[in-house]
């Protein structure tokens, strides 16, 4: 086809011997047209990033393309000499990365880093180059472009850094931009802005964009065509509307079914239950600077400002907010991992904040926590059964009994009890989060505090873990404080929701009320920013069930 920018035919990339499969990418056929956004969707390990890096010739040395053609401007990019590839990179095909903090050199100004791009590919004089840099920085809608050009990456916010990355990728007006999860590390409102920016600039310049993502919401927001990847293969490749609403491949359907809907589900009424957790006017400040001899004003961050909420028995309260809103601080104050500066946290009428350390230990087992990072929150040197038994043993249970209980809990969270004899690093992210849940349950808590428990997980795993949490909550009649930045997850899990911003709760109400009739402008902004909000997720599960029967 004449109007094809990039043609990938039969691309196969081998993994080094000893990996869990032979190919990172296997027999992939894709094409990118000018003036379109092609979304490549897949979970972690699906080979989508490897595929993108093969196009750029940026594979790590262990990986080698073993078959196929990547055709760009009548040349097979897999066979061109390195010098030619260097000319293509940046000038004809450029790339935007996931984490703008680490993808920029911390010791060079933004301007110098963009300048390097022009300097490499043209012989414009320096003043002329600077002019263009300022121009492109204002094109990506950065305020005070000249100041930004002289700023270092750490002086910008995450969103600004990503805008600068985009400016760098676009400055030479490349034919193709490859964006590898460019919004994954950003807050939801920033993500919405960046997505809009990419879409606008793409339309303006008729660039072909290959957009790698794991998020079907993002796909619904910007894709013209979609390729779904699983285990290194493209399982579905079609127009966006086709894939989103009439997906054919079972894997695509499963992925889409795992995306939580923004419409809150029906919840049991908990109004009659007694209040278990009552947080009143919780206050927490962090200060930095000052010092022994420094006369400088210490910087104070008000991480929680008179935060109040109640949770009834069996209720799940969602604490929703963007990074830095103070939601994790509140959670940590409630379990006294950090000490609050003021206010009260009552558990069944006892204020936890005034208890001595020893008294608090009696209450600790009643409130347990599940952490975000399933990799860092489990002690790597303990076997799984010891890990789970540790809590009960500290609280006086005999080791044999605690281990036996650990085996029961492993079964309960859907893991083979044989897992007990292994170390945490042998498990996948989802399995580790299950271990984390078992660990929290080992003390028979009444209250669970879950701090972003599914944020680090793939969407299909996320759905399973959420289901497990829902089961356990029902089975043990648990009260839960659920911290999340993801409004879809909140709508799915929570009975009521408190929206936090700058350490304050700006809106607090039942999930249904808050999602259908948001009152605070910030809540509305958050809801508006959810990617793919206009996309009605088709009910493949029931449809598929009907087909199969």
């Amino acid at each position, binding site marked *: 086809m004449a109007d094809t920018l990039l043609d990938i035919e039969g691309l196969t990339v081998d993994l080094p011997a000893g990996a869990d499969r032979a190919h990172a990418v296997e027999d992939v056929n894709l094409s990118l047209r000018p003036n379109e956004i092609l979304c490549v969707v897949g979970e972690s390990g699906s080979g989508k990033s490897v595929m993108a890096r093969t196009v750029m010739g940026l594979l790590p040395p262990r990986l080698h393309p073993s078959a196929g053609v990547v055709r760009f401007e009548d040349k097979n990019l897999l066979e061109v000499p390195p010098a030619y590839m260097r000319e293509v990179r*940046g000038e004809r095909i450029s790339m935007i990365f996931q984490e703008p903090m680490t993808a920029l050199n911390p010791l060079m100004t933004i301007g110098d880093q963009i300048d390097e791009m022009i300097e490499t590919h043209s012989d414009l004089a320096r003043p002329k180059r600077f002019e263009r840099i300022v121009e492109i920085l204002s094109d990506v809608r950065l305020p005070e472009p000249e100041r930004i050009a002289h700023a*270092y990456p750490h002086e910008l916010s995450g969103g600004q850094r990503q805008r600068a990355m985009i400016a760098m990728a676009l400055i030479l007006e490349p034919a193709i931009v490859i964006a590898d999860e460019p919004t994954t590390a950003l807050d939801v409102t920033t993500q919405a802005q960046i997505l809009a920016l990419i879409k606008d600039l793409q339309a303006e310049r008729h660039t072909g964009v290959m957009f790698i993502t794991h998020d079907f919401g993002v796909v619904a927001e910007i894709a013209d065509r979609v390729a779904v990847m699983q285990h290194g293969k493209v399982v579905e490749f079609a127009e966006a509307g086709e894939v989103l609403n009439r997906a054919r491949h079972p894997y695509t359907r499963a992925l889409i079914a795992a995306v939580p809907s923004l419409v809150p589900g029906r919840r049991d009424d908990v109004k009659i239950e007694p209040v278990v957790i009552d947080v009143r006017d919780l206050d927490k400040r962090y200060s930095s600077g000052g010092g022994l001899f420094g006369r*400088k004003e210490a910087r104070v961050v008000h991480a929680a400002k008179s935060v109040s909420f109640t949770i009834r028995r069996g209720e799940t309260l969602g604490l929703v907010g963007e990074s830095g809103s103070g939601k994790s601080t509140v959670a940590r104050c409630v379990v006294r991992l950090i000490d609050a500066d003021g206010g009260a946290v009552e558990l069944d009428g006892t204020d936890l904040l005034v208890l001595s350390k020893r008294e608090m230990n009696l209450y600790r087992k009643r409130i347990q926590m599940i952490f975000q990072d399933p990799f860092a929150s489990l002690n790597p040197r303990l076997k799984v059964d010891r890990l789970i038994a540790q809590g009960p043993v500290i609280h006086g249970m005999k080791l044999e009994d605690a281990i036996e209980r650990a085996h029961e809990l492993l079964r309960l969270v859907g893991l083979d009890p044989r897992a007990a004899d292994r170390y945490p690093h042998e498990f996948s992210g989802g399995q580790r989060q299950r271990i984390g849940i078992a660990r929290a349950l080992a003390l028979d808590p009444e209250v669970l505090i879950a701090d972003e428990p599914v944020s680090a997980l793939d969407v299909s795993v996320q759905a399973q873990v959420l289901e497990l949490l829902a089961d356990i909550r029902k089975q043990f009649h648990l009260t839960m404080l659920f911290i999340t930045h993801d409004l879809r997850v909140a709508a799915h899990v929570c009975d009521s929701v408190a929206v936090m911003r700058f350490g304050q709760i700006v809106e607090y109400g039942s999930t249904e009320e808050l999602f259908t009739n948001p009152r605070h402008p910030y809540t509305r902004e958050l809801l508006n920013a959810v990617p793919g909000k206009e996309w009605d997720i088709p009910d493949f599960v029931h449809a598929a069930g009907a087909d199969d029967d």
Partner: protein
Amino acid sequence: MSLARKRVHYAGRRLAQAVPIVLGIVVMNFLLLQLAPGDAADVLAGEAGSATPEYMAMLRERFGLDQPVWLQLLIYVKNILSLDLGFSFRHNMPVLELIMERLWPTLLLMGATLLLSVGVGILLGLLAAARVNTWRDTFISVLAIISYATPLFWVGLMLIVVFSLKFDWLPATGMESVAMFYEGWDRVVDIARHLVLPAITLSLFYLALYTRLMRAAMLEQYGMDYVVTARAKGVTEQRITFKHVVRNAVLPVVTMAGIQVGSLLGGSVVVESVFGWPGLGLLAFQSLFARDFNLLLGIFFLSACLVILVNLLVDLLYTFLDPRIEMK
């Protein structure tokens, strides 16, 4: 506030903070030296062969050694505050004058050592990392481990044996050939020739350390995302190494160099003794056995000031190298 003014403010505040630290060091040193058995009167009497108790009491009175310890300390601190480091009875000279005379050979040795270890260390680390897992990398790494594991004094002695005694290429002791009365450039060359062996001896350990540190830092930085970004821009590998990786990799080496300066003074005691280099280290060594506590305390005081000053300089250098460092 501009960055330059910020730096001046920062330096001023750091110097002000240094005053109580130095005073603390002075007091501690003074009290520690009181623990050593014997005093200057004992040594003088011992060297004279015999002395009457009356003569010794007179000596003690003259040196102020008959006063209670707290009073001696008070007088000493008062003198230090007016930059009077006291009098060395051994050399019959004011301590300050004596130290100043010996300071510049030590600074010369320290400077040469620092330059040699940091410069060559960075270079070797860079070479090893640029061709990782080749014979060059292996060769450099083996060399580094050998120098890392060899004791300082032994290296010094072996260098003397090989290069002075066997081949007679370089002088073994002293700082210059006093008997030759060199002037101008001849003198510079003569001192430089004397400098070679002690500087190599003193720098070898840190040179090896920097080589390994630089190699590891370079390899770590090569794996960073910004390197991939630079490749995606079409930048050549050579430019990536020099414009991006080296600047980032050099930061831990600078931190380590700041620590090295402190231990250089300690190391120079051994090296100056081995090579007969007329610096502070040798002076400290001699004054300890002569119980010349005034002189010893003076050297300690000056070393403390030197270390604090160099640390400040390294911190300031850091703010030039790394824009993320905040001057608080």
